[in-house]
């Protein structure tokens, strides 16, 4: 029941925002998101899945019995962690948009809440059709958020975003239906239950079938992540989206792709994933380096952070396809960390943009003199993003690299990648340090540069207001916490990772036998 509450609370909030007067919109949205956050924390405290592979918050009701679709909700530890991340980022997004949104406010906050409900439903789904419906539905609010509240190029950005993701997920839908059909052939009845289909697909599909399903599912999830070369919608969408949109896009929506890989691709198709992992890992590494190099030459800070997301998510996918517990731990941790630090960077850029109405690094810079508090946070979150030891980014990035490196070795962490993957990905880390520090150097330090025509900060003070600081503090605290005590998260998700890798062999020595047996 609690699962339903977590989805229904934001929806209820959206409904109230829609019918109440405009002046109450922000307050109502804040209350609704805080209530949802409270409920999520309560659910997390009572959650029975931490550390083991069990599903908590379970709820199941039959729906379309003829084709085996049921309303099944529930979360394992990884899903719960992502629900927590969502619930945390939402009130911050509302608070962060407090003054930035001036027109059509009701719709803005309404869509934001609808988006929260959809994202939560994605993580809580235990039926593939429910997952798919929620996964697709996230497009609608985001489409409106970009298309109505975005900057100059918003129409193109929103349509590109929609069509890319929509196309990918339709192909994924075909793959899902195929698995369900194969299940029905075998068992004589239809089912879309994730557990049942996963167990079935892991052994019941031929190599050829599994390859087709892998390609179909990856078409959907790779676009969402986004993986090179289907990443081109992301920088555009990020740059044009309003601040809250960018934060949620980077913080949660991209994770839907990696979560999809974690939840479906890895456990469903073990044999072919082993075969295809190096190929996908190569794409990730290319993405890491290529997007990093693009960041290096950006003048638009928002675009820079957007491309850095492509680069960072490359590490995330690399960790997943290392196919060992270490990589999966690193990858899941990366999903959380990237949501925190990149989310914060988008907030910071939004706050700067609200004051100067430009994102051009050549026009604005040396802000340490004008906005010392903002600059402190900027340096902090850039360091977290770069992977400074002691802050959160380091742990996850290191784990992903180590997993890719150790793979291929028959030691404690078997896998299918190898040192070369880690070596090239590590180049990406160096590039990340270069472009992010260059950005800090230009934006924070040096001589003060302000665009000549900027009117004296409208209603905002020169430096951050208490409201804006309130937005950033929780993110900063979590960055430190997950930096010094990453086991808080990694221990909690152990059981879920064991389940995801259940179909894989114990050591790499058996991987080849395993693949030979699959043919």
């Amino acid at each position: 029941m609690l699962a339903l509450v977590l989805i229904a609370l934001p929806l209820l909030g959206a409904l109230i925002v829609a019918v109440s007067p405009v002046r109450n919109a922000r307050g109502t949205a804040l209350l609704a998101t805080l209530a949802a956050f409270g409920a999520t924390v309560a659910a997390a405290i009572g959650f029975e899945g931490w550390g083991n592979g069990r599903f908590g918050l379970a709820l199941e009701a039959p729906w379309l019995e003829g084709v085996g679709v049921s309303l099944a909700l529930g979360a394992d530890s990884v899903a719960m962690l992502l629900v927590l991340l969502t619930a945390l980022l939402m009130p911050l997004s509302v608070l962060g948009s407090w003054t930035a949104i001036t027109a059509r406010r009701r719709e803005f906050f309404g869509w934001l809440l609808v988006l929260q409900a959809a994202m939560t439903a994605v993580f809580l789904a235990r039926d593939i059709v429910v997952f798919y419906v929620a996964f697709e539905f996230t497009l609608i609010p985001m489409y409106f958020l970009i298309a109505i509240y975005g900057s100059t190029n918003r129409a193109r950005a929103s349509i590109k975003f929609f069509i890319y993701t929509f196309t990918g997920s339709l192909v994924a839908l075909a793959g899902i239906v195929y698995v369900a059909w194969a299940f029905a052939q075998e068992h004589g009845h239809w089912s879309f239950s994730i557990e049942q289909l996963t167990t079935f697909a892991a052994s019941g599909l031929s190599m050829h079938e599994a390859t087709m399903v892998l390609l179909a599912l990856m078409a959907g999830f790779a676009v969402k992540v986004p993986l090179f070369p289907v990443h081109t919608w992301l920088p555009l969408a990020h740059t044009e989206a309003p601040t809250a949109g960018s934060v949620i896009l980077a913080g949660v929506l991209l994770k839907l792709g990696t979560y999809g890989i974690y939840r479906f691709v890895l456990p469903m198709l073990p044999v072919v994933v082993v075969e295809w992992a190096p190929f996908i890992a190569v794409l990730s590494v290319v993405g890491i380096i290529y997007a990093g190099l693009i960041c290096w030459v950006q003048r638009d800070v928002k675009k820079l952070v957007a491309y850095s997301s492509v680069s960072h998510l490359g590490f995330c996918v690399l960790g997943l396809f290392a196919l060992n517990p270490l990589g999966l731990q690193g990858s899941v941790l990366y999903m959380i960390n990237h949501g925190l630090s990149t989310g914060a960077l988008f907030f910071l850029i939004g706050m700067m943009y609200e004051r100067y109405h430009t994102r051009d690094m050549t026009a604005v810079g040396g802000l340490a003199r004008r906005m010392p508090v903002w600059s402190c946070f900027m340096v902090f979150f850039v360091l977290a993003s770069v992977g400074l030891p002691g802050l959160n980014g380091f742990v996850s990035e290191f784990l992903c690299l180590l997993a890719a490196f150790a793979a291929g070795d028959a030691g404690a962490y078997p896998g299918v990648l190898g040192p070369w993957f880690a070596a090239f990905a590590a180049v990406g880390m160096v590039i990340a340090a270069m472009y992010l520090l260059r950005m800090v150097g230009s934006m924070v330090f040096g001589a003060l540069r302000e665009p000549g025509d900027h009117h004296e900060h409208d209603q905002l003070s020169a430096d951050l207001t208490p409201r804006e600081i309130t937005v950033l503090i929780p993110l900063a605290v979590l960055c430190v916490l997950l930096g010094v005590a990453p086991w808080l998260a990694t221990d909690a998700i152990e059981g879920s990772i064991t389940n995801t890798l259940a179909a894989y062999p114990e050591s790499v020595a058996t991987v080849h036998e395993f693949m030979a047996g699959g043919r």
Partner: protein
Amino acid sequence: MVFPLLIPELIVLAGAVTCAIVGVSSKRSVRDALPGVAIVTLVITGLWISIFAGVEGMRAPGSTLQTLGPWVGVVTCALGVVLVLLNAGTADREYESAVAAGKVTFDPLRTTRGEFYVFLLLSLGGLLLVTAASDLIWLFLALELTSLPTYVMVAMSRTQGRAQEAAMKYFFLGAMSAALFLYGFALLYGATGTVELASMQAVFTQQAAAGGIGVMGIAGMLLAVLGIGFKLAAAPMHLYAADVYEGAASPVTAFLGFVPKAAGALALMLLLSTIGWFDNGALPPVLSVLLWVMAALTMTLGNIGALLQTSAKRMLAWSSIAHSGYILMGILAGPHVGGFGAVLVYLLAYGLSNTAAFAALAALRRGGAEVESLKDLPGLREQHGLTAWTMAIASGSLLGFPPLIGFWGKLLLFIAAVASGHIVLVVIAALNSAISAGYYLKLVAIPIMGEPTARSREVERAISPWPRLVGIALAVSLLLMPLVLPVLMQQVQRIFAN
């Protein structure tokens, strides 16, 4: 006593005759009751059908799908009411207003208002009759009864030359297609020696068991499928659709988008059941290939055609061609894997969504003329908020976006097609859905997000309030229908259970 199977059709006929009489009354208040008469007729018919749905005598004897009637009947009557409301005030509007202004005196010989409702009801009656048809001759008559009135309705819908041109094109091409499938029927008779569908099925079953269905039977069925493809606006018989749909007034276009299409799809299901799918088998390969190619071509051409349009109405016309492609995919999947059931649900979902989209167009006018171009729509939200949202929700449902009913219809079609082994076709359909996002999104973005232009500010509400209200009601139904989907699916499964 034999249960009077044709009562629903007879009620519709009685209603049509009443309309013809009421329509020539010299009192305007009496003539204004015409839509009411039509609606009452349809409500009575629908009630009759739903009350007696379970009665043994409601089965069409000799038909290959005997239990199809009640579902199709209720859906037809329900959508019929919606279409009548949408069309209220379409026919003869200029003449009526001239009479009201006292410019001309009312002349029963000149009015066409009553006839419009007569034809509308007869066409719906034709659709009912398709499911009751037990032999080829009845089937032919039912199909033509569905189509012939629509030719006249197109011509009557507006006084512009375009409507007449559209009607002529529609009529001549329609006549050609009728000749085509009639020829096919003749060959089928030649091949089996019977016109009754159930007996044909028996003969074909024997032939198939004895080593294969003869060339004449296959050729007859090929011609029949192609000819009936015209009703569906399926490639290669789709070329008329864009011109005809654009030429007719929007409410009539909504009618064309559903009624003949449903009749065609049902007729294909009835006919193809005689020649294939025996004992959980498949269709003969030639027919299977034909349907596959038609489905793939229809959806692809329809969507690409729609993508190229600058007129919203023409865009919707092309898109309705694409939807026929999806429907053909369901027919190809066959009855055993839920293909026919999916087609029935999809027809309903598509009928509601398509009607809602055309209702939104019909709810607006600019300078006394219909709104057609996309240039009329920017920023519609500001002055016509609900209509703009109707358009957006209808487009979303046509696109097949969850959680709207269009998505569920499409999902069922996909499942059925995968289950029948046509995976490549499903991938083509998925890619086509993606293509269609390109233009359906325009119908969402332009009214909701666009900035109003000088031109779009001139858009005002249409004279009749009904299209607007019907559109809103349909949009709400598109949102709520998924809640009753389990019930619908149960009903549909019961139809094909035996």
